[in-house]
Every structure is written in C-alpha cells, then in structure tokens.
C-alpha cells in the first residue's frame, strides 16, 4: 500500500465495462517523511474521500478485496488500486 493525498478526480465515458459506476480519484503519493514523491496514482474510491484527504491506497488483490469485501471470488474485478483508508494521523 502507499500513503498519499487526494488531489482530484477523473471522469471517463469511454471505459472498460468493469469500471462502470466507480469513482476514480487522483492520489499524489507521499514518502516516509510525508513529502510528495511526484508519483500519481488513479484509485477507485468507496469511502467518499475528498480532495485534500490523506488516504492509503491498496494495490492488486488487496484493492479487489476493498471493492468486493468478503466475496469468495473477486478475480473478475477490474481494478488494481483502491482507497483503503482515510488517514487521520501518522507518526
């Protein structure tokens, strides 16, 4: 997972069917000291995160679990990055 800050949102009409209905947020990754690394990721959001929120982003099968919690089979989920938590503090 990475930690980052939500900086905006992306809209697309022409997209793979598996992305229908997903909110896609732009997240600027941060390093251990909290500085922006420059890397931008697009993550699916189910937690209603807003621009300016500090979040963690899960990748790969972790992201699929966020999007379909408790499902026996989530191999058809089309998402490789999802907001896993809205961060309140980090030390």
């Amino acid at each position, binding site marked *: 997972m990475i930690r980052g800050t939500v900086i905006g949102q992306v*809209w*697309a009409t022409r997209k793979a069917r598996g992305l229908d209905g997903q909110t896609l947020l*732009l997240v600027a990754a941060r390093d251990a000291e909290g500085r922006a690394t420059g890397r931008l*990721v697009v993550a699916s959001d189910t937690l209603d995160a807003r621009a300016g929120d500090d979040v963690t982003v899960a990748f790969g099968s972790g992201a699929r679990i966020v999007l379909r919690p408790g499902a026996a089979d989530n191999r058809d989920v089309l998402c*490789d990055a999802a907001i896993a938590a809205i961060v309140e503090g980090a030390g």
Partner: protein
Amino acid sequence: MFLGRVAGTVWSTVKWPSAQGMKLLLVRPYRVGDLGPGAAPAPGATGSEPTDDLVVCADTLDAGPGDDVIVAFGHAARVAVSEKLAPGAKPSVPIDAAVVAVVDRVEIPR
C-alpha cells in the same frame, strides 16, 4: 492505475499467439508537477504534458496519440483485455498493462 497520455503505437509481428491482434500503445504517465490546479480546460486534455518514462499497454478502447487515458496493471489489465474475448474465456494473455478508460475530464480543485 495511472493517468497518462498516449505518445505512440508499437508494432510487433512475432508475439505470443494469445496476444495476436492486440493493439499496443506507448503511454507516458503524468507526475504530480505536470498537473496544475484547475487542470483540464478541454475535454480529452489536461492542458499539460506528462514527463515520466513510457509504459507499453494493450488497448481495447481505440485510444490514439494525444488521448489522456487510465492504465491498469496486473490482473486488472488482463480482465480488461478479456472483455473482448469470448464469454467465460480465461484472461491468459501475456499482458500486464492495459488502457481501461479514455479520460474526458480531470478536475483538480484549487
């Protein structure tokens, strides 16, 4: 997933059989500094140029040079590609990056 701009196309005649007929694009990812506040003045354009290293991705959405796209990695990329295969077919293609959306608009609040 990442946001990037299509920079070009890759051709290949010798490839894994299950990847035959697949269009490959070169996509340059955006970095934080490439997108100013309030980016995206026009549909399909963020108004700025990406600067990161190129990534080769499969394309099933007919994206072309200059389009801003979202690219997914890993299993999600194979799921996207398999949407074009017969129903129930397993996405066993040697692909780990695919265009999953052609971007209309990017909104970055000030």
